[in-house]
C-alpha cells in the first residue's frame, strides 16, 4: 500500500507479504496438481491408465476415433447447449421479474430457487428418474418427437434446474445493482416497453446473461450425477461414459479426451474474454464477468 511506512513495520509487512505469496503459489499447485496428472497420463501408451507403459499418442488416437466416445462428447455438447438456452431464457426473465417487479410473490419464488440450490444433486437425480419413468410420454421410450431422443429431453430438463436457479440469481443481482433511473428515463422519452427492454435493460444486464449462459453450459458439461441416473443408452453424455469406466477399467483415452476438452474450453473462454475486452472491459472486469457474474 504505502511505500513510506516505518522501516521496522515494512520489514514485518514483507514477511506477511512473502507468506501470503507462498500460500498463493501453494494453492495454485494444489489446484493444478490432479489436472497435470491427467494431462501427463493422457500420453500413457498402455491399455490401463494406472499402469504406465511409455509415452505416446495412443490414447489420443483411440479417443478421437472411438465412436462411443464421439457420441458421448456430442451428446454432452448438445445437452449443454440446450441447457444453456433453457436456463438463460427462463432465468433471465425470472431475474428481471425479481429485480424489477417485486411483490409478495418474490419471497415464495426465492424460497423455491433456494430449495433447488440446496437440494443435493443425488436427491434430484433419483426424484427425476422416478418422475420420468412415471410420466412416460416425451420422457419415456415411446416418445415420438422427431430428431430429439427422449434421453436428451430428460437431460435438458434435469440439467436446466440448477442452471436456471443460478442464472436467475446472477441476473437479479446485476439488475439490483443498477439504478432503475435509466429505464425510467427511456420511458419518459416515450420508448415503448419492448424498445426500452432491447435498448436499455438488455445491454445493462448483458454481462450477467453471458456469465449465466456460460455457467449453465459449464454446469451441464460437468454434471455427472443427474446424467448417470436419467440418461439412456444412445444419449449418454461424456461424464456417464467416464463413470462407467471408473466402475470397469480406466483407460488412458479418458485422460486424452479430457485434455482435449480442456484445451477446447480454454480456447473458447479466451475468445469470449478477448471479445469482451475489445468491447471495452478491462482484464479484471472480464474475469469477474465470467467467474462471478460482474
Amino acid at each position, binding site marked *: *500500500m*504505502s511505500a513510506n511506512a516505518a522501516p521496522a513495520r515494512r520489514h514485518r509487512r514483507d514477511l506477511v507479504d512473502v507468506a501470503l505469496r507462498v500460500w498463493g503459489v501453494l494453492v495454485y499447485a494444489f489446484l*493444478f496438481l490432479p489436472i497435470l496428472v491427467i494431462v501427463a497420463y493422457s500420453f500413457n501408451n498402455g491399455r490401463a491408465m494406472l499402469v504406465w507403459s511409455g509415452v505416446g499418442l495412443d490414447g489420443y488416437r483411440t479417443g478421437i476415433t472411438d465412436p462411443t466416445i464421439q457420441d458421448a462428447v456430442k451428446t454432452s455438447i448438445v445437452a449443454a447447449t440446450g441447457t444453456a438456452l433453457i436456463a438463460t431464457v427462463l432465468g433471465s*426473465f425470472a431475474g428481471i*421479474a425479481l429485480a424489477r417487479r417485486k411483490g409478495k410473490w418474490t419471497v415464495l419464488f426465492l424460497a423455491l430457487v433456494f430449495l433447488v440450490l440446496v437440494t443435493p444433486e443425488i436427491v434430484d437425480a433419483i426424484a427425476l428418474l*422416478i418422475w420420468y419413468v412415471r410420466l412416460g410420454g416425451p420422457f419415456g421410450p415411446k416418445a415420438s418427437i422427431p430428431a430429439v431422443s427422449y434421453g436428451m429431453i430428460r437431460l435438458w430438463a434435469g440439467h436446466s434446474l440448477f442452471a436456471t436457479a443460478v442464472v436467475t440469481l446472477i441476473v437479479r443481482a446485476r439488475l439490483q445493482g443498477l439504478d432503475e433511473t435509466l429505464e*425510467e428515463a427511456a*420511458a419518459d422519452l416515450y420508448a415503448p416497453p419492448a424498445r426500452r427492454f432491447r435498448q436499455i435493460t438488455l445491454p445493462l444486464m448483458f454481462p450477467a446473461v453471458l456469465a449465466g449462459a456460460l455457467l449453465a453450459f459449464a454446469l451441464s458439461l460437468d454434471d455427472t450425477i443427474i446424467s448417470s441416473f436419467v440418461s439412456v443408452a444412445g444419449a449418454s453424455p461424456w461424464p456417464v461414459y467416464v463413470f462407467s469406466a471408473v466402475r470397469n477399467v480406466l483407460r488412458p483415452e479418458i485422460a486424452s479426451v479430457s485434455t482435449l476438452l480442456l484445451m477446447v474450453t480454454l480456447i473458447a473462454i479466451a475468445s469470449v474474454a478477448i471479445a469482451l475486452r475489445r468491447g471495452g472491459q478491462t482484464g479484471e472486469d472480464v474475469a469477474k464477468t465470467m467467474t462471478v457474474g460482474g
Partner: protein
Amino acid sequence: MAPRDADAGRGARRIRAPRFTMALPAWIWFVFFFTLPVLWIVYYSFGYKPDLYHPIATDKLSLAAYKEAFSSAFLHVFSQTLQISILGTTLCLLIGFPFAYWLATRVAPRWRGLLLGLVIVPFFVNFLVRTIGWFILLSPNGPVSSLLQRWGIRSEPLHLLETRGAVQLGVVYNYLALMILPLFVTLDRLDPAMREASKDLGAGRWKTFRQVTLPLAAPGIVAGLLLVFIPLTGDYITALVLGGAKGNMAGVMVASQFTLAQDWALGAAQAVILVAMILGTVAVFALIAVAVRAIARASRRITLPAIAEGTA
C-alpha cells in the same frame, strides 16, 4: 415496491399482467421438474419394499423406512458425512481466505483478472475426471507412491485410497473454488482506505484484520461457507471414487438403494433425512453466528463523547 413502473402513468387504460408474469415460465419449470418429483420422493419414503422383485409399494403408509434409516449402520454414515463436510468446509475457509486476501489486496490489478481466471481453470475439467486425477495420485502404483519407494522413503506402496482421509482431501479440492470466489468478491470490494484509516488510528495489523477486514468480509465468508457446505454434504462422486467402504458418505448410500438394493422407500427416507440434515446444520450454525455477533457487538459497544462528534 412502490408503483414505479414506467407505464403506470399511461397504463391505466390497459390491463396489466400480474407482477410475476415474467417469472412464470421458470416457476412452472421448477414446479414440474423439481417440486413434484421431490414431493413424490417424500411420498415414497412412507412406503415399503414388498418383496424381492418390486422396489416400492405404497398401499399402506408408515414410518418403517425412517426407522430403518435411523438404525446404527446408516446412522454411522450420516454422522461420518457430517464430520467430513464440517471439517471440509472449515479447511476450505482456512485455505481459501488467505489466498483470496492475497489475490484481492497484494496482487497488482493488472494480473488479478488472469490469476482469478486461473483459479477456475481446473474446474473446466469434469468433476469426475478431476477426482480420477487424485485417484491416480493416491493409488498404490501411482506417481507419489512409486517416487517415495524409489527414493527409499517408503518400502511398500502407499495405501491412501479407500480411506476417509482420501475423501476429505477430495472434497476440499473439489469445492475450494466455491469458497475462493465469493471471498475474493467481498475482499476486492473492500476499500483499502478502510484498512489505512484503521492503521492511522493506531490499530496494529492483527487488530485491523480482526476489527476491520474480517467483519467487512463476513458476507463473503457466509456465502462461501454455504456454497461449499451444501453441495459437499450431498456429494456422491468424490466418496464413490476415493472412499470405498471406509470413506462412505450419505449420497453414496442413497444412490445404492436405487442402483443396487432396489429399496426405494429406504432410499427415499435417507434422501429426506440428508436434506433435513443439511438444512438443520445450516440453521444451527446461522443461530450460533447471530448469537456470536450479538455478543461481540455488545462487548465492543463504545459511547462517543459528544465533543468527538462535533469535531469529526
